[in-house]
C-alpha cells in the first residue's frame, strides 16, 4: 500500500541527478502545495484567530518545536525504541513461525485465512490487557507492537516461501539438492520481496502501535502519553510539535527499510 513511486523516488532523487523535468513533474507541485497550505493556514489563523486548542498557527507550532526540542526528541526516541523493539520481536517471531508453517501445504492453506482475518481485529484495543500483563512501562507497548507486526509478517513470509513453482523446485531436485539447499537457494530469496513488503507495513504499524498503546496510559516521557496530556490541557501546539516528531520518526523508519531493501535486493525493482 505504502509502496509508491513517490516515496521511493524521493530517495533516488536525493542521490543527485535530479533533472529539470523530474523537478517540474514530481517535486515542484507538492512543494507548491506545501507552501500554499502553510501560508493559508498561517494567514487564516492570524485573521480569524481561532482558539489555539482548535488550530495553532504553523509559526506557533514551529516555535514550540524548537523551544522544546530536547524534551520532544527524548520522548520521541523513547517511543521509537518501543516501536523498534516490538518490530524486531514481532517480525522475528513471524518469520520463524512462517518457516515452519510454509513447509506444509495443508498447514499453510488452513492457517493463512485465520492469520489474514486477524487483520480485522483491533489489536491496539488490547493495550489495557498488555498493561496488566507486562506493566505500565515499555513492556506492554512492545508487546502490543510485537503482536501487531507478527501477523502481517507471518502471512507475507508464508506466501513468499511458497512462491517457487513446482518446476523451480524440480529443477533444484534435479541437482540432487537437499531440503536445506532448496530453502537457502530458492525459497528464501523468493520470499525476500514479500518479507520487505511486510517490513514496510510493519515499520508504520509499529509507530502507530506504540503511540496508540501509550494513549491507554504510561509515563509522560513518551510521545503518545505526551500528545494525549497536552491535548487535554489545551496546549495543542505542543501536541502538534510532538506529532511532527512522530512523523519524522515514522518516515525515517520506513525509509531505513526501503534503503535496506535496495541494498539487499538490487535485483528487485519497484515495478511489481
Amino acid at each position, binding site marked *: 500500500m505504502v509502496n509508491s513511486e513517490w516515496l521511493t523516488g524521493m530517495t533516488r532523487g536525493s542521490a543527485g541527478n535530479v533533472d529539470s523535468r523530474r523537478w517540474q513533474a514530481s517535486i515542484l507541485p507538492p512543494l507548491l502545495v506545501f507552501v500554499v497550505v502553510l501560508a493559508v493556514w498561517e494567514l487564516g489563523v492570524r485573521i480569524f484567530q481561532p482558539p489555539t486548542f482548535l488550530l495553532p498557527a504553523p509559526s506557533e507550532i514551529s516555535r514550540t518545536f524548537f523551544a522544546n526540542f530536547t524534551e520532544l526528541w527524548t520522548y520521541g526516541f523513547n517511543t521509537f525504541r518501543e516501536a523498534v523493539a516490538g518490530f524486531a520481536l514481532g517480525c522475528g517471531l513471524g518469520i520463524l513461525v512462517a518457516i515452519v508453517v510454509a513447509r506444509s501445504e495443508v498447514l499453510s492453506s488452513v492457517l493463512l485465512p485465520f492469520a489474514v482475518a486477524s487483520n480485522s481485529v483491533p489489536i491496539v484495543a488490547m493495550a*489495557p490487557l498488555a498493561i496488566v500483563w507486562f506493566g505500565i512501562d515499555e513492556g506492554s507497548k512492545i508487546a502490543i507492537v510485537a503482536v501487531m507486526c507478527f501477523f502481517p509478517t507471518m502471512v507475507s513470509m508464508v506466501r513468499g516461501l511458497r512462491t517457487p513453482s513446482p518446476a523451480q523446485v524440480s529443477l533444484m531436485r534435479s541437482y540432487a539438492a537437499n531440503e536445506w539447499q532448496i530453502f537457502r537457494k530458492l525459497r528464501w530469496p523468493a520470499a525476500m520481496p514479500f518479507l520487505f513488503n511486510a517490513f514496510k507495513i510493519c515499520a508504520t504499524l509499529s509507530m502507530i502501535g506504540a*503511540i496508540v498503546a501509550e494513549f491507554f496510559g504510561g509515563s509522560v516521557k513518551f510521545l503518545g502519553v505526551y500528545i494525549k496530556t497536552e491535548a487535554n490541557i489545551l496546549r495543542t501546539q505542543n501536541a502538534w510539535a510532538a506529532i511532527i516528531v512522530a512523523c519524522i520518526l515514522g518516515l525515517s523508519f520506513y525509509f531505513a527499510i526501503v534503503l535496506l531493501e535496495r541494498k539487499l535486493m538490487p535485483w528487485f525493482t519497484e515495478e511489481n
Partner: protein
Amino acid sequence: MRDASLVARIPTQWLRWGVALLLIALALFLWEGSKTFFNLPDYKLPHLAQIGEAFVRPTPQGPVWRVLLQDTLYTGLEAFLGFVLGGISGFLLAALFVHWKPAERGLMPYVVASQAVPIIALAPMIVVGVGRLGAPPWLSKAIIATYLTFFPVTINATRGLKSVDRDALWLMHSYAATRQQIFRKLRVPASLPYLFTALKISATASVIGAIIGELPVGSKRGIGVQIVVGSQYNTFNPGFLWATIIMAALLGMLFYGVVALVERRALHWKQE
C-alpha cells in the same frame, strides 16, 4: 507436499472449520491449563467462567451484555459514518486525480506519505478540539474514522481508476465515447478490486479510530469507554475487561466481514 494423502483429500473448507474448532478448543484448554499450571492470578488471566459471568452480571441498565452491545453499536455507528464519508470523499478525490493531473501531482505525495506516518496520533486533539466547540460527542470519532478511511481509499481508488489498459481505453475512443462514459463504464468497474482492498483495510482502521477517539477523559459512550472502565476495575471484576475487548474484536470482525461479503458479491466476475 509430504502431508498424508488422506488429509489432503478432505475439502479445504471442512478442514478450515475443523481447524478453527480445534484451535478454539486448544486455546481454551491452554487458557485454563496455564492458569492452573502457572498459578496466574485472576486479574491477569480470569477463568473463562468469570468472563461469561461478567457478560450476564445485572446492572441498573440491564445485564452487562446488553449494555456492552449498546456501546458497541454506538461505536459501530461512529465508525460506519466515518467509513462511509471517508470512502466517498476518497473516491471523489481519486476521480479528480484521474481527470486533472496537477491535482494529483500536488496532493498525491501527501496522501501516500500519510500511510507511512502515525496520523492516528491526531485523535486526541480532534476529540478535545471538536468537543470544546460544543459539537455532539460522536462527531469527533466519526471525523477520525473518516480520515483513517480517506487516505487508503484515495490511494487505491486512484490506482484502480488508472489500472485500465491502453487497448481498453482505445476501444472506448474508437466508439467516440465521452469522458463520462469512459469513467462510468470502464474506469469505475476496473477500479473495484483495488477499491475493495482499501475498504477492507479501512473497515478495521475506522473501528480502531472510533475506539481511540473514545479514550480521552470526558467520553461517556462507546466500547472504548468501556475498555477504559474495564481496565480501571480489573482487580475487582477481572472478567469484564476481557468482555469489553471481545466486543471490540467482534465489531472489527463484523466490519471486515461485511466489506468482504460485499466484495465477493460485487466482484463475482473475477475468479471463483
